[in-house]
């Protein structure tokens, strides 16, 4: 899984053409950036030492997750534990595959995360565009408010959301989950997309206007295609946040519409809390879709997250 973390071309207004052409971000001028060409041995040693220590911290737990998921259930209670499972087995994965309830959670997770991603991107594209390309009174205050709204504690919002959804008979529905998920996806999506729209030169929009395109048409056929990487990044981001949510689904989804994270907690925290191989196998399976989506689209995601934040 080689990772190329690319930034979208840095939004320097003096070279607007770098963004206009293909609609995909071009790699930055890599040759002149990044690490020094000549490195002293001391730097090299320090770098390796850092990588080994921090890398060990990052990756050993991942190894342990994998190793435990392959350990036969009767060996998992050996102490001290074996760092390499003696007789690796896929039993844990097989017993997961036989668990219909988990598939239900999986289906719910996919449905809810996808709808959340689409809704968030749609709504925040218009909002971000408005913030980026228009100037009006209250714009800045509103922007601040949107950005600040991610500071509002979820646990607190939940107190009311539960009662409101209950009153409108929306508990245990996908609607409740999607609406509650937007509380944390919208602010960052708006921020990311505004950053992307900022890199689209105003001249381009002016030109289209002079040609007689309507304002909506400009958005839909000029701006959005140009911002496609940003839309993908924001959508992916919203998907991942929705996929990972725990507390809203735990409280609002009920048993039928439960998503994977609380579903797993309900499955494995209880008697099965000692079924470590299965729990680790399930953990692995839950993490995979996000990892795959990320690896496939990571250049957009990292670019999107850093757009507007990193300037050359």
């Amino acid at each position, binding site marked *: 899984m080689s990772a190329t973390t690319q930034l979208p071309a840095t939004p320097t207004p003096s070279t607007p053409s770098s963004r206009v052409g293909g609609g995909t971000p071009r790699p930055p001028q890599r040759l002149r950036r990044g690490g020094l060409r000549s490195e002293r041995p001391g730097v090299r040693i320090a770098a390796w030492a850092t990588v080994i220590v921090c890398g060990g911290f990052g990756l050993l737990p991942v190894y342990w997750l994998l190793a435990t998921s392959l350990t036969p259930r009767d060996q998992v209670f050996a102490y001290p534990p074996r760092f390499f499972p003696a007789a690796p087995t896929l039993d844990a994965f097989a017993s997961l595959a036989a668990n219909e309830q988990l598939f239900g959670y999986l289906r719910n997770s996919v449905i809810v995360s996808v709808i959340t991603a689409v809704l968030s991107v749609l709504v925040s594209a218009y*909002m971000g565009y408005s913030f980026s390309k228009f100037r009006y009174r209250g714009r800045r205050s509103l922007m601040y408010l949107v950005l600040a709204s991610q500071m509002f504690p979820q646990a607190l919002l939940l107190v009311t959301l539960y009662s409101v959804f209950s009153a409108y008979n929306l508990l245990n529905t996908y609607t409740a989950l999607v609406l*509650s998920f937007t509380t944390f996806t919208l602010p960052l999506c708006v921020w990311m997309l505004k950053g992307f729209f900022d890199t689209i030169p105003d001249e381009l929009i002016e030109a289209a206007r002079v040609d007689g395109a309507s304002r909506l048409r400009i958005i839909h056929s000029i701006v959005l295609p140009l911002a496609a990487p940003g839309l993908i990044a924001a959508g992916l981001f919203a998907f991942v946040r929705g996929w990972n949510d725990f507390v809203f689904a735990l409280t609002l989804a009920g048993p039928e519409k439960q998503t994977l994270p609380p579903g797993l907690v309900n499955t494995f925290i209880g008697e099965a809390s000692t079924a470590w191989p299965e729990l680790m196998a399930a953990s692995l399976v839950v993490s995979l879709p996000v990892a795959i989506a*990320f690896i496939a689209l990571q250049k957009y995601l990292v670019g999107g997250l850093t757009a507007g934040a990193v300037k050359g």
Partner: protein
Amino acid sequence: MTHRDVAMSSSQTHTLEHRKSQTTPRRLSDGQFAVLLLLPGVALLAGVVLYPLIAALVTAFFEQSLVLPGRTFVGLQNVVEVLQGDFLRLLRQTMVFTLGTTILPFVIGFALALALNTRIRGAKVLRGLMLIPWLVPGVVVSFLWMWIFNANYGVMNALLQGLGLVDDPQAWLAQPGTAMGAVILAKTWQSFPWMMVMLLAGLQTVPVELHEAAEMDGAGTVRRFFSITLPHLKGIVGLVVLLEFIWNFQHFDIIYVLTGGGPAGATQTFATAVYETAFQGYDLGKAGALGLLWMVLLMALVVVYVRFSEKGEER
């Protein structure tokens, strides 16, 4: 208090001036269109964020149960009870958790970013691998560290005993002295990759020419780090630290699943306390009062931050 302000502080002044001239206000008729574009988002946020927030804060002044109908106005009684009760302990624990899970990932993420920004072999592959912990859902992080820290079969005890650092297996998650540290470590594991990616992206925008010129002038690695790299990263560092702080201040998942706020409330933060008060204690008034104090604190922090960052350019 916007991310743009943070970002702006790092950008060069000429860019800023250019942008200003570029984005002069348009004709007024655009205003209505712009507001129209905002409507769906504003309606959504008002419905699912603003209203719930205000309504939750209002319950602070009522005695109200989650499961029984009706409520009675009790004035400041809930707030007073919370202040006399757990508030200071919760505040201290929340701050320990928030600062710990902001500083530790920052240090690790920055160290890794610097290391991977050199030309060491396999940097790209390593960078990809390092992202894994960040992609893992919070509950999975909790499961994994629950298993690692397990008092009876955990690998952490085996490792430390093997190294001779502890004599007996420890119940890391069940001792007040170690539980918070364990929770912070688990959260750090999840967040450091994000810090690493952001800082690495920032590092790659530092012009090599500056380093080369400084090196020719005889500046050492350490000196160049402080006089060139760090000033360049000011904006991105401010941003990641701020965002991480905000997120961790209300973090819930890992604490709730890993320790449930225990042992004896030693890892309870505002987030878990509000949840448990409302959804296990069914005491909405007290949950609202906790939330109210929490928001007041947050606002105070915001004001301090805005004051602090006002030194930067105004847009």
